[in-house]
């Protein structure tokens, strides 16, 4: 199980960067992933990225309600 905790959009050195912050189901393992290259950023693309990254099934990726991501 992998939960999306947040998405950060910023611009260090003036260049846009997008980071997704995740954690595992125990809340003990946190990760940051630079997903700037993912375009467009939506739930499908993000699911595909995390599935490849962690080898988990799409249903094992949790999108909290308070994080609004286009389908």
């Amino acid at each position: 199980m992998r939960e999306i905790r947040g998405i950060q959009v910023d611009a260090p050195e003036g260049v846009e960067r997008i980071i997704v912050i995740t954690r595992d189901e125990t809340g003990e393992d946190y990760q940051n992933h630079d997903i700037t290259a993912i375009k467009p950023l939506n739930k499908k693309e993000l699911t595909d990225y995390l599935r490849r990254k962690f080898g988990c099934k799409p249903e094992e990726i949790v999108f909290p309600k308070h994080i609004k991501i286009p389908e």
Partner: protein
Amino acid sequence: MTTGAPDYSRNVILYGWDGSVLRKIKVDATGQLFAKLRGVDGGGVDRDIRVDTTGQLYAMLRALYGVTQKDIQCDTNGNLTLNLKAQDLAEIINRPKYGAAHNATYDGTLTTTTETTLFTVTGKGIIYSGQVIVKDTNATHTQFDRAKLYIDDWYIGGAYFYQYALNNFTIPGTSSWWIRKYDIIANRVAICVLPGITFETNCSFHYTPYEVSTVTVSAGLIYALL
């Protein structure tokens, strides 16, 4: 009189009533009273209360969820697992758990008077610290620029730099922002955000120059997410 015992010894036979017949209560070979305990289950049936192989009484605890009985469970270490939804303790000491701290930054130049989003964080979290540093050697009115804080899509605060300086908002806690440096000769301003502000869906910094110029803006935010 008890046969074979001193004449001051007394011998008493105890009887128990099983519901229809009086029966003797026994002791074992060492004279210890022993008993087989029984309990009545929800269906009115008598059942034996057991001990394990070391003679320890064991029990499976159950609780009602509405009208349905559920087992109360423990983890692999034998610790009772609890999920408290309400409690009546006079006080409770806890530690909100946030994840690792993160840093959002912005470095760039703004050349229009359009409000620009410096960075956005989406999630539930807390601000540890944040600042916006401005340098504009061409502008004549940097003091009327504004750094703005939005929490959960709501504008929280961000007056003209001039107003913060005028009202001496230089101490943390006086406002959502407090000014750290205000030099209108060199057109350099540093303004800091109040630490400890929490957000439920998002948090973002914006910047609006007062006049068309080339404003160099560096901003940072240290925060943590749940």
